[in-house]
């Protein structure tokens, strides 16, 4: 109880509240502008949070991302361009509603059910993470090895259609993670005499490159693409929301639950949650024929799912240090910088700060109602911001942000290389998420493997001698064998 009170005291401080409000406005703006994503908002915020105490630093990121995922719905609804990838799943549906004169309902549903999805996701996070931590405290290097491997496996098989390219991306990430001195033997690897590379490449500049610079490059080769302008005045977005809540309560519950679960899986975040949820909604709907023609049901379910996913991604990030999506991948870096090392013991060493994070999640979702409403009202103005002015300014922000981490221009080189690399990967159908996960988890995977091998005196069977480790190990192997089994089955069926 004292921890909860301490958490309240940590959050309800004028400085923290001011940071939350500023981050909310920033997040709403970034989300509402097509081409700027929630992950990019996080990457740009890191250099700023660098100079804050832990709680406002985390609060800043939590608030900005929650707002951005909601406000990504706005341009999708008004001009048929999703503001963030998380809104892409239902952009046609929302735009169809706008064309039929139901823009208010579409925007209102986006707002209200984002809030509900976010709150349900947060409730799951706040209850399941500490419970999971109780179990995870007893984990040894064997369990962690399998857990990390399972996480990497998920990233390859969930995030994309082409697992082969996913594996290549993952291997590239693992290779990058092996650069530098940070390995069990402390031997410099792939440094080629560079002092900068001894400390590895630097996670934050890498993220700024992959998520911000690559988006700017993508903008640059897209041509003008300013899109259509929206001129109509928007009325009361809250009308009829209570009716929708009562009518579609099952959709809301299903979307929030699926979203949170997908978010918690490593490598899959809000965008995949929205796609899966939209498909699920259509499957379970009583009127599936209406989907795609301006029907609100799918919008409600996947709108709740993407905000639920945001909270869900924090579960593995906090308990195991395994990021659930690209946002928490960056967050883990911030947590380490702030001395809040993720892992099951964080709930014992920093309980007040962790409860403060949960509290900020609730607060951010509640704040979304008035601020999101204001954002919808201002949408016309935000969509008029000229992108040819905005993008170069963001680029300079990236440069300064990367420089600020270690005060070297080496980091500027890193954002350039990784920006171009991420652009080329996406262009050729190589998913970026597995690479990110590989970079973050590579060191952990190697460390737990070597420790386990030393403990079991070089016997690989040692990885299966503890019950939880054995379960996780078998599960991982099954996931790897699944595509093979599917292929064999398909061949037999084709032969028959």
């Amino acid at each position: 109880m004292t921890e909860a009170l301490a958490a309240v005291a940590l959050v309800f401080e004028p400085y923290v509240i001011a940071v939350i409000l500023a981050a909310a406005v920033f997040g709403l703006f970034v989300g509402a502008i097509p081409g700027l994503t929630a992950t990019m908002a996080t990457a740009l915020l890191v250099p700023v949070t660098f100079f804050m105490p832990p709680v406002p630093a985390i609060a800043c990121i939590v608030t900005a991302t929650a707002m951005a995922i909601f406000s990504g719905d706005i341009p999708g609804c008004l001009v048929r361009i999703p503001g963030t990838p998380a809104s892409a799943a239902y952009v046609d549906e929302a735009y169809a509603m706008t064309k039929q004169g139901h823009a208010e309902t579409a925007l209102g549903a986006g707002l209200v059910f984002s809030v509900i999805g976010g709150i349900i996701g947060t409730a799951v996070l706040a209850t399941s993470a500490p419970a999971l931590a109780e179990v995870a405290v007893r984990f040894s290097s064997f369990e962690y090895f399998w857990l990390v491997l399972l996480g990497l496996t998920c990233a390859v098989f969930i995030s994309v259609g082409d697992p082969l390219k996913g594996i290549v991306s993952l291997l590239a990430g693992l290779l990058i993670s092996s650069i530098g001195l940070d390995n069990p033997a402390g031997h410099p690897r792939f440094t080629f005499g560079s002092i900068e590379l001894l400390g590895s490449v630097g996670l934050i500049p890498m993220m700024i490159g992959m998520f911000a610079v690559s988006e700017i490059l993508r903008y640059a080769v897209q041509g003008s693409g300013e899109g259509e302008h929206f001129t109509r005045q928007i009325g009361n977005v809250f009308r009829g929301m209570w009716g929708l809540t009562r009518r579609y309560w099952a959709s809301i519950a299903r979307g929030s639950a699926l979203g949170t679960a997908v978010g918690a899986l490593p490598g899959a975040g809000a965008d995949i949650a929205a796609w899966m949820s939209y498909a699920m909604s259509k499957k379970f709907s009583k009127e599936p024929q209406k989907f795609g023609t301006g029907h609100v049901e799918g919008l409600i379910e996947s709108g709740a799912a993407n905000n639920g996913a945001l909270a869900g991604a924090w579960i593995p990030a906090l308990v195991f240090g395994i990021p659930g999506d690209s946002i928490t991948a960056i967050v883990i870096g911030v947590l380490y910088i702030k001395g809040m090392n993720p892992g099951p013991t964080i709930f014992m060493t920093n309980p007040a700060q962790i409860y403060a994070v949960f509290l900020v999640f609730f607060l951010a979702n509640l704040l979304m109602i008035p601020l999101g409403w204001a954002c919808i009202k201002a949408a016309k103005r935000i969509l008029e911001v000229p992108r040819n002015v905005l993008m170069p300014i963001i680029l300079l922000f990236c440069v300064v942000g990367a420089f600020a981490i270690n005060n070297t221009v080496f980091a500027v080189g890193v954002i350039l290389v990784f920006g171009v690399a991420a652009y080329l990967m996406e262009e050729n159908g190589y998913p970026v998420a597995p690479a990110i996960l590989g970079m973050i988890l590579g060191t952990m995977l190697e460390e737990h493997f070597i420790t386990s091998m030393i403990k079991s005196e070089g016997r690989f069977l040692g990885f299966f001698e503890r019950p939880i480790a054995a379960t996780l190990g078998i599960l991982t192997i099954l996931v790897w064998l699944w595509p093979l089994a599917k292929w064999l089955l398909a061949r037999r069926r084709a032969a028959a």
Partner: protein
Amino acid sequence: MKVNDAVVGAALIVLAAAILVHIQPYPLIPGQQYGPALFPGLIAVGFIATGALLVLRGVRRGRPLFEPGGALRSARLATNFVAICAALVFYIVAAEPLGFLVTGALCLAALFLKFGVRPPAAIAIAVIATLVIHTLFYKLLRVPLPWGVLERFAW
């Protein structure tokens, strides 16, 4: 630009070979059968396997080795792409001697003009935006951005 799977696969195999050569002299952990070479070695094996599969797939599909797309659709878009990279390279080279204010403003102005902002507005916004970012990071966040040629006027 779309690259044929076979080209990517071949590149991965070459990379894997380079890794395998590079890790040969790595020592073992005392008293163990493995050392820092183990993981990069496994990654290299992974690259060879996936690289071979990509080569196979690329050859079977028989597409051209390189297909223009994205940036290479038009000269204007290609130069847009190059302009952003060039701005970053220019920053890396010039930030220390010229200082943040001059370099930042030059980069911004050049990119604004490239993206079709009208000249007077481009220059005005470039100067103002650089000053704002400088104030935010140098004054408020205490990031030691270089002064360069403006050292004598540092504020």
